[in-house]
C-alpha cells in the first residue's frame, strides 16, 4: 500500500521545538557584544522637528549613540519595489530629514549597552516640533478621495472603475432594492511577536535576524536602501510569531537596526514596543463603502453597485482588493465597482489577513442578507438563485467552484433548518438568538517559487526554500509534500526555511504558500529523483546499470525497472555509491494559458449563531461553522486549526477590533493589548471547519487553493447577519458594539 502523506493529519514537526522554548524567533538570536536600540517616536501628527538635542542624553549611563536626522548617515534609498509594496509613491525614508509625516514616525534611535539604559535615555530625549493638525479622519469633510494611479492601468488586480451593463439604472429600476453604506474600522494586526531585528555587520556584509514574511524581499529592500550588492545581505528568520501581513513589507525599524549597527560598529538588537506596532508597521485601512443591490421579486439580481474607499498615507498609495469579490460572486448582468483612496496624515496601511476581500465581503454579504429579508427568501436560497455558471466579469469558467456544496454541507452541520426566518423570533430564556450566514471567497493565487532537495548518504533528504512559517504549519505541510513525492517516511525528510540564501519563494501571504512553494518542492523532488535514476543507470556496479531512465520508476523511495518485482534500490544505495549527496533544484509557476483560461478562487460558507442580551447589549458568539471548497487539503489537522483561527480573527473584526485615532494629533488612543480588544479564551465559542471534496486540476500541480485568508473572510458578515436575525437591528459599522445594541 502506498503511504499517502498529503491528506494526513500529522501533528506539527516543529511542535516539540515550540513547546520547549527552542523555536528561536528574531529577538531570540542574541549576539555577543550586542547593543540595544530603542526608537523614539514622534509625538506630533504632522510637522517638523525644530530642536532635538541628542547630546543632552549622550552622557547618560550606558548610552553608546544617539542617532537623529542630524547625524544619521545619508542612505542611498535606491529604487526598489516588490509586489507587496504600494505601486505608487515612495517608502518612508527614516532619519533623513526633519519632517514628521504621521504620529509615531521614528525620529531618533538611542543605542545603549543595555535595554534599560536605552529606554531611559530615549525617554529623556527632548524634542521640539513645529506641529500642525494632521487629517486622520477618513470620514471627515477635509478628506479628498483620489483615484489610485495603479488601479487605472490595464490588468490591475483591482480596477478603479469597472462596469458591465448599466448597473445604476438597473438598481434604480429594480422592484426590490438595498442601498446602504458601510464603515469598517482601522485594525492592527497585533501578532503576538513584536517586530524585531538584530543587525550585525561584518565589513560590508550584513546579517539580519529579522521578523519577515518575505525574506528575499527584505534582503533586496535593505540592499537597495543601503546601496549594497544583494549578496551582501543575509536575512534569517526560522520562526515568525504570527504576522497576518504586518511583516510582508520591510518597515523602517529594519533599516534603523542596520543603520545603528553600522554607526556603532557592533551588533544591535531592536525590538518595537507594542505601542510602536500601532504606528509604522501597517494596518488594515478603515474603509467606507456603499452597496446598492437591485433584484426582481423572485430574487434574481438585476444590478449591483459597489463603491469603496480605503485609507492610505500621503506618501504611498496602498491598494487592496476591496471591490473585487463583487465582480464574480454572483450572477448579475449589471455590475459597477469603484475603488478610491483617501490619503491621510498616517503611516501607510498594509495587507491584513484577507486584505480587501474581508472588508468588501462584509459590505456585499450584509447587503445580500438585507435583500433576502426584503424579498422574503431564505438567505441561502437567494444565493442559489444567483449562482453563476461562470465568472461573468472575466467571461471565463471557474476552475472549480463549490459554493453551493459549501452551503449545503455547512447548513447541515450547523442545523440551519432549526432557524425561524423572522428577526427576534428565536430566544433562549432572556437572550435573543440569531443565526446568520455569509459567503467567503478568496483568489487561488500561485506565484513563481523554487526549492532544492538534497539526498544524503544516510537515506534522508534535506529540502530548502526561502519560505516562512508564521503559524499555518509550513514546516509540517511542506515536509509532507516532499515525503509524498520522494516516497520517504516523514521523519526522513527535513524541510528548512527562513533564510534568504535558500531558493527564492514569494511572500508568505496571500494564501499562496502551499500552491507556490509546495509546487516547487514537488518539482525539485521529481528532478532529484530523475538525477538519482540517471546516476543509478550510469553506475556500472548498480543492478540498474545500463537501463534506460525511461524504463525506471520510483515507488515508495525505491527505484526499479517498470514491472519488475525486485526490491529495487534506495536513495541510500545510490547516494552511497555516488559518494556525494545528490542535489537538485526545482521551480514552478502557473501556466499562463491556464490563467488565461480559468477564473480561480476558493469559496466557502460561514454560519454563526449569536446570543444578544437585550438588556445590556452584550453579544456572545455561540457557534461558528464554516464549510470550504479549497481544493486538496494537505493536512486536515492544520487546515482545521487555520480555519478556526481565522474565524476567531473574524470575530475580532466583527465585534472587537478598532484602532481609534485622536483627531487632534493622530495618536492611536488604544495602542495597548488590553485596550485594543481581541478575542480571549473565554470568548471562544464552538467552532467547526469542514471541507467539501473538491478536485481542481487547474490551479496548480498539487490542486490546492490556499486557506489562510478565506478562513477569516466571511466570518464578520455571518456574525453581523446573525446579530440582525437576533435583534432586528442592522449594524453596518464594524466593530458592532454594545452601544449599537442598546437601541435594538
Amino acid at each position, binding site marked *: 500500500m502506498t503511504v499517502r502523506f498529503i491528506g494526513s493529519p500529522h501533528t506539527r514537526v516543529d*511542535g516539540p521545538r515550540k513547546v520547549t522554548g527552542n523555536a528561536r524567533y528574531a529577538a531570540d538570536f542574541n549576539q555577543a557584544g550586542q547593543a540595544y536600540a530603542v526608537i523614539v517616536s514622534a509625538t506630533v501628527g504632522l510637522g517638523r522637528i525644530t530642536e532635538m538635542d541628542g547630546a543632552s542624553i549622550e552622557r547618560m549611563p550606558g548610552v553608546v549613540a544617539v542617532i537623529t536626522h542630524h547625524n544619521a548617515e545619508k542612505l542611498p534609498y535606491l529604487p526598489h519595489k516588490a509586489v507587496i509594496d504600494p505601486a505608487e509613491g515612495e517608502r518612508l525614508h527614516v532619519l533623513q530629514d526633519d519632517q514628521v509625516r504621521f504620529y509615531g514616525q521614528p525620529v531618533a534611535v538611542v543605542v545603549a549597552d*543595555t535595554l534599560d539604559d536605552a529606554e531611559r535615555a530615549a525617554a529623556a530625549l527632548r524634542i521640539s516640533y513645529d506641529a500642525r493638525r494632521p487629517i486622520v479622519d477618513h470620514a471627515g469633510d477635509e478628506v479628498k478621495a483620489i483615484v489610485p494611479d495603479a488601479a487605472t492601468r490595464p490588468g490591475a488586480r483591482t480596477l478603479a472603475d469597472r462596469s458591465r451593463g448599466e448597473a445604476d439604472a438597473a438598481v434604480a429600476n429594480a422592484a426590490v432594492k438595498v442601498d446602504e453604506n458601510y464603515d469598517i474600522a482601522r485594525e492592527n494586526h497585533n501578532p503576538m511577536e*513584536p517586530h524585531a531585528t538584530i543587525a550585525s555587520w561584518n565589513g560590508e556584509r550584513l546579517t539580519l535576524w529579522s521578523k519577515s514574511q518575505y525574506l528575499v524581499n527584505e534582503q533586496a529592500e535593505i540592499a537597495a536602501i543601503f546601496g549594497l550588492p544583494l549578496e551582501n545581505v543575509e536575512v534569517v528568520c526560522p520562526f515568525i510569531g504570527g504576522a497576518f501581513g504586518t511583516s510582508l513589507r520591510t518597515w523602517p525599524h529594519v533599516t534603523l537596526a542596520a543603520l545603528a549597527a553600522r554607526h556603532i560598529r557592533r551588533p544591535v538588537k531592536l525590538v518595537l514596543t*507594542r505601542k510602536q506596532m500601532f504606528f509604522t508597521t501597517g494596518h488594515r485601512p478603515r474603509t467606507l463603502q456603499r452597496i446598492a443591490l437591485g433584484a426582481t421579486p423572485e430574487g434574481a439580481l438585476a444590478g449591483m453597485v459597489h463603491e469603496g474607499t480605503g485609507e492610505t498615507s500621503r506618501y504611498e498609495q496602498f491598494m487592496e482588493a476591496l471591490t473585487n469579490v463583487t465582480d464574480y460572486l454572483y450572477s448579475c448582468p449589471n455590475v459597477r465597482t469603484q475603488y478610491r483612496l483617501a490619503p491621510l496624515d498616517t503611516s501607510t496601511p498594509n495587507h491584513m489577513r484577507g486584505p480587501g476581500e474581508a472588508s468588501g465581503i462584509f459590505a456585499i454579504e450584509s447587503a445580500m442578507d438585507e435583500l433576502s429579508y426584503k424579498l422574503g427568501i431564505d438567505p441561502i436560497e437567494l444565493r442559489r438563485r444567483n449562482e453563476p455558471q461562470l465568472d461573468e466579469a472575466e467571461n471565463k469558467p471557474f476552475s472549480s467552484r463549490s459554493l453551493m456544496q459549501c452551503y449545503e454541507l455547512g447548513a447541515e452541520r450547523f442545523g440551519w433548518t432549526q432557524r425561524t426566518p423572522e428577526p427576534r423570533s428565536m430566544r433562549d430564556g432572556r437572550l435573543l438568538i440569531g443565526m446568520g450566514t455569509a459567503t467567503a471567497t478568496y483568489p487561488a493565487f500561485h506565484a513563481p517559487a523554487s526549492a532544492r532537495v538534497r539526498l544524503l548518504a544516510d537515506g534522508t533528504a534535506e529540502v530548502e526554500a526561502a519560505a516562512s512559517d508564521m*503559524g499555518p504549519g509550513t514546516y509540517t505541510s511542506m515536509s509532507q509534500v516532499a515525503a509524498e513525492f520522494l516516497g520517504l517516511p516523514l521523519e526522513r525528510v527535513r524541510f528548512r526555511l527562513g533564510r534568504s540564501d535558500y531558493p527564492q519563494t514569494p511572500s508568505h501571504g496571500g494564501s499562496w504558500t502551499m500552491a507556490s512553494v509546495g509546487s516547487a518542492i514537488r518539482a525539485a523532488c521529481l528532478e532529484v529523483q530523475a538525477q538519482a535514476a540517471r546516476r543509478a543507470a550510469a553506475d556500472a556496479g548498480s543492478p540498474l546499470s545500463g537501463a534506460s531512465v525511461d524504463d525506471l520508476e520510483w515507488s515508495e523511495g525505491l527505484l526499479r525497472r517498470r514491472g519488475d518485482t525486485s526490491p529495487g534500490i534506495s536513495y541510500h544505495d545510490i547516494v552511497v555509491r555516488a559518494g556525494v549527496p545528490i542535489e537538485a533544484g526545482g521551480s514552478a509557476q502557473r501556466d499562463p494559458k491556464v490563467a488565461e483560461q480559468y477564473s480561480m478562487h476558493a469559496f466557502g460558507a460561514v454560519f454563526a449563531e449569536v446570543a444578544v442580551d437585550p438588556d445590556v447589549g452584550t453579544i456572545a458568539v455561540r457557534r461558528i461553522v464554516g464549510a470550504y471548497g479549497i481544493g486538496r487539503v494537505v493536512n486536515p489537522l492544520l487546515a482545521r486549526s487555520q480555519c*478556526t483561527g481565522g474565524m476567531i*480573527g473574524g470575530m475580532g473584526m466583527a465585534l472587537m477590533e478598532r484602532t481609534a485615532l485622536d483627531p487632534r494629533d493622530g495618536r492611536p488612543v488604544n495602542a495597548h493589548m488590553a485596550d485594543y480588544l481581541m478575542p*480571549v479564551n473565554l470568548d471562544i465559542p464552538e467552532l467547526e471547519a469542514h471541507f467539501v471534496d473538491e478536485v481542481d486540476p487547474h490551479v496548480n500541480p498539487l490542486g490546492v487553493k490556499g486557506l489562510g485568508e478565506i478562513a477569516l473572510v466571511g466570518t464578520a458578515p455571518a456574525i453581523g447577519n446573525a446579530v440582525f436575525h437576533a435583534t432586528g437591528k442592522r449594524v453596518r459599522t464594524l466593530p458592532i458594539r454594545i452601544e449599537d445594541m442598546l437601541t435594538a
Partner: protein
Amino acid sequence: MTNQHQRSPGEAGTNGHSGPASTLSRRTVLQMAGSAASLAAMSHAEAQSISETQSTVADAGAARPLQLTVNGVSRELEVDPRQSLLDVLRETLDLTGTKKGCNQGACGACTILVNGRRIVSCLTLASMHDGAEIETIEGLEKNGELHPLQQAFVEHEGLQCGFCTPGQIMSGLGCIAEGHAGSPEEIRFWMSGNICRCGAYPGIVAAVADAAGRS
C-alpha cells in the same frame, strides 16, 4: 472580551482572586522601587512624565546582587534594579523561551512560575525576587521527555505560530495547580490572561484539560 477579564499587574491568567504578591498596583510598585527603577515597565510617555517630577536617581543603573534559582539551577547575578524579571531571563541569562509580547502585562506571553505561582514576568522587577524559585518553559522537559502538558499542546494543536505557547504552557501549569482546570469552561476563564492571536484557543483548552486529567 479582553476588558472583561482584567488582571492585577503581575498576576497572570487570573481574574483578580489574587494573593499578596499580586495585589500590588502599578502605583505601589513605583513607590516601592523608585521611579527610575520602574522605567522598564512603562511606556515612554509615562516614563517621561514621572521622570519630570521625580528627577533622576543617581545610581539608577547600578548593579545589585540577586540570587535566583532558575529551573533548579542557582544563579548569582548582578542586575540593574530597573530590569524586569523577563528581561533578566531573556537578555541576561539568554533564556529566550519566555517571550515578550507586549511588556504591559496584557498578553501573557511572558508567563512564568515564581515560587510555584504564575505571573507575567514583564511586570515585575527582578530585584524584588531575591531567593525566588523560577520555572520557565526551558525547565519542563526532563531527560528528553516532554512534560505531559507540552506533549498535549503538540497533540491537540494548542499552537500555531508558537510565540504565545511558552506563556500558555506555564499558565496552563498554574491553572492546573490552582485547581482551575475542572471543566473546559473553567479552563477558558482561567486561561483568558494569555492571548493567542492565531486563535489556537480550542486546542489550548483541550491540551490543558487533557494534561489536568492525566495529572
